[in-house]
């Protein structure tokens, strides 16, 4: 089945020696070093902090939503927390996390040895930090989609910082896209397109998405600021502007934004699965085709976020529906490829024990749970019936963002952990983290789907005491607490294991049956 190029382009051999990279880092290297490992470690650790902050916000408003009535938060602080939660999780956690993992993996896997344009990655990081600080100061309370004219009428005197933050996020992501594109294209030219590892195709796809969509986001941020300052009236209908202009511009970025963490997560999965199984992916070209189709479709289906509308109707609406339904095809090709790879030969015991492998399997599971409902979301008739702006939408994207992408981010960091600490994580704590997350995520997503089916509205601090709403909300909050507990276990694990974990030499992920080089100590048996 596998072609002659497979072993080369699938990268089934280890690329690094376990080393205490993080222990040798100084404050100076942590902050300013352009070494790819330092930039990537800084990005991953910052993302973990962002996950902690965003998660803490979620715990607070989840506690508020556990019961009908006002418990601990009024409407305005609730909406500020929810807005910041969305922005921290998307812009601060999941996108930078998976991109940082790519920064770590690309130089060795693509054979460039160094991250090309590493200075750009450095700038991208610091611009994002500046954006996060401005966001917190501005305390926006208009959700991450900040629809005008509502968003122009709320917020305090410092809300303009939020719009500047949007521009900074756009510039930061544009630069990150340029870095990924540069590395992917350079590797393709050097290695040859038929031999380019799938990580390279992932980098090119992600680079195109970032570089093409973020300039529009920057424009949106600028116009929001100038409209707010009453310099222009691009979006404000009260002064002659047009809301639909905002809709088309924002979602031109907003829909690809959903794919920004997805593409790296898929690329990481294609990189790690062969490592744990010791065999190539079932179909290289199926994966490349799926990457290309997803990248193209990401840019043209965005009106489904606000249809039906007066100017999204007729053939445009029909075309958007067909193309949105068609996204089902490349997404499912990826899943088909992974399952075919898993099924083709026995799964080594070493893989079954490894915590990152478990997170990979959970990711595939949740990609199906989240992805399959896209078939419903895409249909205009069902969208007009119960999907639009009910909990069905966050159910879909939490299954994708948390169930697939965050799980893959965890697979990536557990995989890299022995390479940058020289030590192995604690297996029992890793397993505890895994199960707390999977039970929590499944509970949360299932309850969100159920609530959506019962027309529970998004973005509400309080709700009617109806049994079809209040009971699932209580269970949902329980699921969120499990995810929070799992995160605490994860943080304890990576902190303690960095000094107390078993020292690793050789290949920490040696496949059972293969000779572990230099007396390597693979994942400890359970």
């Amino acid at each position, binding site marked *: *089945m596998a072609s002659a190029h497979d072993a080369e382009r699938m990268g089934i051999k280890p690329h690094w020696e376990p080393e205490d990279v993080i222990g040798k880092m100084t404050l100076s290297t942590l902050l300013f070093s352009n070494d790819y490992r330092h930039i990537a470690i800084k990005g991953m650790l910052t993302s973990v902090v962002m996950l902690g902050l965003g998660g803490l916000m979620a715990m607070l408003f989840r506690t508020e939503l556990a019961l009908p009535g006002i418990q601990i938060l009024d*409407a305005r602080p609730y*909406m500020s927390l929810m807005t910041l939660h969305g922005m921290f999780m998307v812009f601060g956690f999941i996108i930078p996390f998976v991109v940082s993992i790519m920064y770590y993996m690309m130089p060795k896997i693509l054979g460039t040895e160094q991250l090309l344009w590493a200075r750009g990655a450095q700038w991208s990081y610091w611009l994002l930090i500046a954006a996060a600080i401005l966001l917190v100061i501005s305390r926006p309370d*208009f*959700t991450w989609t900040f*629809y005008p*004219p*509502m968003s122009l*009428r*709320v917020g305090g005197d410092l809300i303009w910082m939020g719009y500047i933050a949007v521009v900074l996020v756009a510039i930061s992501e544009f630069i990150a896209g340029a870095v990924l594109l540069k590395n992917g294209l350079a590797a393709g030219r050097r290695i040859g397109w038929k031999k380019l590892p799938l990580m390279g195709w992932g980098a090119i796809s992600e680079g195109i998405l970032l570089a093409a969509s973020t300039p529009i986001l920057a424009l949106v941020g600028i116009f929001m600021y100038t409209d707010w300052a009453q310099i222009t009236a691009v979006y404000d*209908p*009260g002064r002659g502007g047009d*809301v639909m202009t905002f809709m088309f511009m924002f979602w031109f970025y907003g829909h690809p934004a959903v794919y920004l963490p997805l593409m790296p997560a898929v690329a990481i999965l294609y990189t790690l699965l062969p490592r744990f199984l010791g065999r190539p992916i079932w*179909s290289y070209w199926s994966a490349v085709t799926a990457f290309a189709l997803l990248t193209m479709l990401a840019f043209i289906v965005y009106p489904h976020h*606000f249809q039906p*509308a007066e100017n999204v109707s007729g053939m445009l609406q*029909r075309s958007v*529906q*067909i193309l949105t*339904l*068609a996204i*089902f*095809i490349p997404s*499912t*090709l990826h899943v*088909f490829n992974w*399952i*075919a790879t*898993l*099924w*083709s030969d*026995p799964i080594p015991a070493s893989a079954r024990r490894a915590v990152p492998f478990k997170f990979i*399997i959970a990711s595939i599971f949740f990609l*199906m*749970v989240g992805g*399959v409902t896209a*078939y*419903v979301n*895409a*249909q*205009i*008739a*069902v969208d*007009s*019936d*119960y*999907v*639009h*702006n*009910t909990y069905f939408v966050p159910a879909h994207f939490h299954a994708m963002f948390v169930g697939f992408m965050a799980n893959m981010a965890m697979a990536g960091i557990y995989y890299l952990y022995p390479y940058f600490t020289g030590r192995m994580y604690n297996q029992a704590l890793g397993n505890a983290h895994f199960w707390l997350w999977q039970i929590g995520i499944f509970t949360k997503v299932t309850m969100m789907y159920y609530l959506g089916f*019962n*027309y529970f*509205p*998004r*973005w509400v*601090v*309080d*709700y*009617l005491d*109806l049994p079809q709403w209040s009971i699932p909300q209580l269970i949902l909050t329980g699921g969120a607490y499990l995810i929070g507990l799992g995160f605490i276990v994860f943080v304890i694990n990576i902190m303690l294991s960095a000094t107390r974990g078993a020292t690793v030499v050789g290949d920490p992920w040696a496949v059972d049956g293969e000779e572990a080089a230099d007396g390597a100590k693979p994942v400890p048996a359970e």
Partner: protein
Amino acid sequence: MENALGLAGYQSTMMIIVFVVLALGIGALFAALFLPTRWRLPYSMEFLFVGLLVVMVWYGDKRSTEIFEAYQAPLEEEGVLETGYNTASGEFDRVIRVLAFQWGFAFIDEEDTISRNAAVVEPGEKVLFSLFANDVIHGFNIPAAGITAEFEPGAERNVWIRAPAKPGKYLIQCLNYCGVGHSQMKAWLVVQGDEDNEQGEA
């Protein structure tokens, strides 16, 4: 009751398709993980699989479009609001203009009587809601009627429902975040009838 889009059967069909596809996918994943038998799939399997997906796309688009167009047809006839107002000959038994604002609804009937936060209809009536707003983007949702709509300031959006047959109060709510009072932006669809009858559900 009759669902506004007539989706009861269609919606169920789509959810069954979703559950079947999900069950097959999860079944295949678990089989790949736990079955002792290994299966090296030929590449031809993927072409068959893509063919099935294309059929799913075709079916989803076809059925969705048919149902949506059937729902839209009475709304898109020329002069629908004018004929609607003449309930004797119009498409609809009742026409209600709905002004959505931060944070509530005002319902204006055919005699220009304004009701704050309650739309009063008769059981089983075919009711046209003409939605508009002047401040920000709002949503309009009647869970019992299975209809959602989003409309921006300055635009008019028409939706219709078949009112529940059972007298009672049915929830109307905003589904699009419109400011800090969004969660309180609710109203009631009041279906008139014999007081001895059971109350409808929210």
